[in-house]
């Protein structure tokens, strides 16, 4: 348990930046979806957020192990599900929720797994 906490501490800033990066990526894709294939402000906002997500990811890599930080981008799928149901009114199934749970557990194991 101590090693688990240590791993989170060691990669702390990187983890925070990766969570922000995945949030921006998920929001970016949501705005692309809202753009409906047209060239409008939501499409441009989507591009901006997606780009910002990439910048945050690159900076995050400075502050921790690549093997911890890169997989954490999958937290974006969790955000996407949340925004999909909340903003886009998409239906969330039981397997959607189970999948999200798996991803959260997986991400936590990776975040806390930087020691043997």
């Amino acid at each position: 348990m101590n090693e688990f906490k240590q791993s989170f501490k060691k990669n702390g800033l990187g983890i925070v930046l990766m969570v922000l990066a995945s949030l921006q990526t998920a929001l970016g894709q949501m705005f692309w979806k809202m753009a409906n294939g047209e060239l409008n402000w939501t499409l441009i906002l989507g591009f901006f957020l997606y780009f910002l997500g990439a910048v945050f990811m690159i900076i995050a890599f400075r502050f921790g192990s690549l093997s911890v930080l890169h997989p954490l981008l999958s937290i974006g799928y969790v955000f996407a599900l949340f925004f999909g149901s909340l903003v886009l009114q998409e239906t969330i199934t039981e397997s959607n929720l189970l999948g999200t749970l798996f991803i959260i557990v997986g991400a936590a194991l990776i975040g806390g797994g930087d020691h043997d």
Partner: protein
Amino acid sequence: MIKWVGIIMVFTLLGAVGGYFFKRATSEGVAMNGHFMKNLTIGVAFYGSGAILNIITLNYLPYTIVFPLTSITYVWTMLISYVFLNEIISRKKMIGVLFIVIGSCLLIT
């Protein structure tokens, strides 16, 4: 189908290699120097070509197959981190990536 498995392996590898060069870019801090710009450019080239190949694949295979398989990228990341960055690949990390792959499959069912 075998052909597509190969292509999915290639674009996930391209994405992971891109991530590795992003990591290399920031190894001496985030600064606009030669080291940063060189590795960033290589990273963008790999990451970008991976993304393009991903989009092309989506034209031929259903999204429900391509999306979860994209998480194979992180399996490559583990290998690359171990071989080139001497990072520890603990059992927790391996199980974690497995969970992400399973979770991604469940998300689209």
